[in-house]
């Protein structure tokens, strides 16, 4: 009886229990591996670096839930930040007033929405595969960025811009506030609105969703628009954090966003997955990243480890599903 009850609990909350165990393991491992791990510095690095990765992961989560994928998130972020940088430069660079910066933010968000809209329309109306569409968009945006910047950096922003990326509000870093707000918004949207429900339905059975009277094309377009918007927000944040824009910045995040979604229990085919679990997965991954950094791991070795981590996650998921399928 007790065993059956435990098994039921485990099945219902398996993702959360698994993630909590994994987090404990990660903390234990790095704590033993490097004595400097248990310090305020580690906490700080996680708190400041999590938000960029987090916003990009939210941008990836929505398309995956709808049964697609958005491979263009990092370059959308770059191009949006580029638009913002261009407007700040036009407003006088370091002497630009707050008006220009705000205008830049609006322009960046607009670029994100536009990019997302184009992808959404092609996916929804042309019926092309999201992987293909977002890949083509990624090649295009990457090329556009290279063409515009000639592979260089763009910097020279007013000092208060950098303060947004490094400042705190009530003791909590401003980027973290931004991420928490965005995550809360995603959580509410996905669990409490008609649109959120439609996204889940679309991911699990597009035909049935269409027959039940939902305008699936409109939902799909909105999914990619929101994904583009969230990518743009990540781009703005990266601009304030690095005080510069470089196309290709954050390219390595792409793998980690996919990893965070699947580690957080999101179904790769769409339809299932919770924002809260993905946020938990993010905290674990950022802790691992900071820990590896602290240990001075070789950059390319870290790349390989991320790849292995993704494979291990998917294999664990497969074993878990088999066990659950055959369990009592």
């Amino acid at each position, binding site marked *: 009886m007790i065993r059956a009850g435990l098994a039921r609990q485990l099945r219902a909350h398996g993702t959360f229990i698994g993630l909590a165990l994994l987090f404990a393991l990660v903390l234990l491992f790095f704590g033993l591996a490097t004595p400097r791990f248990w310090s305020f510095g580690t906490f700080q690095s996680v708190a400041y670096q999590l938000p960029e990765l987090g916003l990009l992961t939210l941008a990836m989560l929505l398309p995956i839930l709808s049964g697609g*994928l958005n491979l263009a998130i990092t370059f959308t972020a770059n191009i949006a930040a580029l638009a913002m940088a261009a407007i700040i430069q036009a407003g006088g660079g370091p002497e630009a007033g707050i008006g220009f910066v705000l205008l830049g933010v609006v322009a960046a968000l607009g670029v994100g929405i536009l990019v997302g809209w*184009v992808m959404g*329309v*092609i996916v929804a*109306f*042309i*019926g*092309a*595969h999201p*992987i*293909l*569409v977002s*890949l*083509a*968009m*990624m*090649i*295009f*945006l*990457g*090329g*556009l960025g*290279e*063409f515009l910047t*000639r*592979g260089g950096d763009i910097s020279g922003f007013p000092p208060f811009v950098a303060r947004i990326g490094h400042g705190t509000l009530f003791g909590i870093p401003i980027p973290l506030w931004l991420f928490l707000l965005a995550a809360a918004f995603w959580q509410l949207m996905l669990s409490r609105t008609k649109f959120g429900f439609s996204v889940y339905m679309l991911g699990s059975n597009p035909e049935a969703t269409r027959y039940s009277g939902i*305008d699936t094309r409109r939902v799909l377009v909105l999914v990619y628009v929101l994904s583009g918007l969230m990518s743009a927000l990540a781009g703005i944040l990266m601009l304030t954090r690095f005080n510069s824009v470089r196309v290709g910045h954050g390219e390595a995040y*792409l*793998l980690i966003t*996919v990893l965070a979604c*699947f580690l957080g229990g999101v179904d*790769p*085919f769409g339809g299932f997955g919770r924002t809260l679990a993905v946020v938990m997965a993010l905290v674990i991954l950022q802790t691992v990243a900071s820990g590896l950094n602290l240990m001075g791991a*070789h950059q*390319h*070795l*870290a*790349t*390989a*480890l*991320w*790849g*292995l981590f*993704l*494979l291990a996650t*998917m*294999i664990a998921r*497969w074993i878990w599903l088999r066990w659950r399928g055959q369990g009592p």
Partner: protein
Amino acid sequence: MPERQSPLARLAPRSTEAWLALVILLLAGFLGIATDTFLTLTNLFDLLNISAFNVILALGLLVVLVAGGIDISFAVAASVVQYLVAVTVMAIGGGNWALGILLAAGFGCLLGAINAALIHYCRIISIVVTIATFNVFFGLLMFTTRGRSIYNLPDWWLDRIILLEIETRSGFAFLTLPVLVMACMVLATWLLLNRLNLGRQLYAMGDNPDGARRIGIDIAAMHFLAYGWLGACAGIGGLMQAHYVQEVVPNALYGRELDVLAAVVLGGARLGGGRGTVLGTILGVALVTMTANGLNLLGVSPYAFKMVVGLVILVAITMSNLQGLEQLWRRLRRRPVAEAGR
């Protein structure tokens, strides 16, 4: 609702291949007029020499796409194979072309089999597996080699083999070994996909995996065949690329997978499986290569190249379903009415 064919759709060429051939002819005509170097034998032979590597990889990727999968790890896998072959032949002190090709195909197959095993036995979707193996292959390669290149390759690997040499007014035009290997791979892939029962099974699996399983197709074998074929193509392509540039550089092929994927998809292979031809793939690579070459000859900044390729694919995707485009247009025009009626 009865299917209504739009006048636009009726005018369009029937097949992707016909579309591509038309675009390529127009582009060649334009470049021939706009530049005085494009339509020379030297330039055309050079295009063949350069694109041999891309065609070989594209053929492998075509097989995977036909089978309903996708792979982005193959270009990095080609780099790994270059290293493995270089280290092996240097360890046994020499070797020759036959051994080199055998080793390259073998190592490539092995790397492909890793992908196939993860996709088939662990039921992970192919894009996720290959994103992971892309990073594992590249990370481990850069870590173990510390980013060092190999220049002292054996002589047989480095010696230029010229198949055909023609003297023209603008200099010597010559075809090299990679073009011959490319031709062999084209023939082999065509035979596999069109003349062998195995090829038809690949199309069947890509079109409808459940149906294929129920009529008794060995899905595991098909996965290993498709990814193994791509691996072998990547290995042989890598061997040719190292021969062409006379060195092995660990990150030389990083990012090439996107160009190749773009070309194959332009050639009409469908993500999701079941569709794609060898001819279309070759035309796709030809279009991408010609676009790059043309931009170069026209004096356009090389920075613009990727942008143009991305744009060409986006337009090609959009043009692939003109009815969808019309529906979008109608909806945009009638948006207020449609919303009121909903």
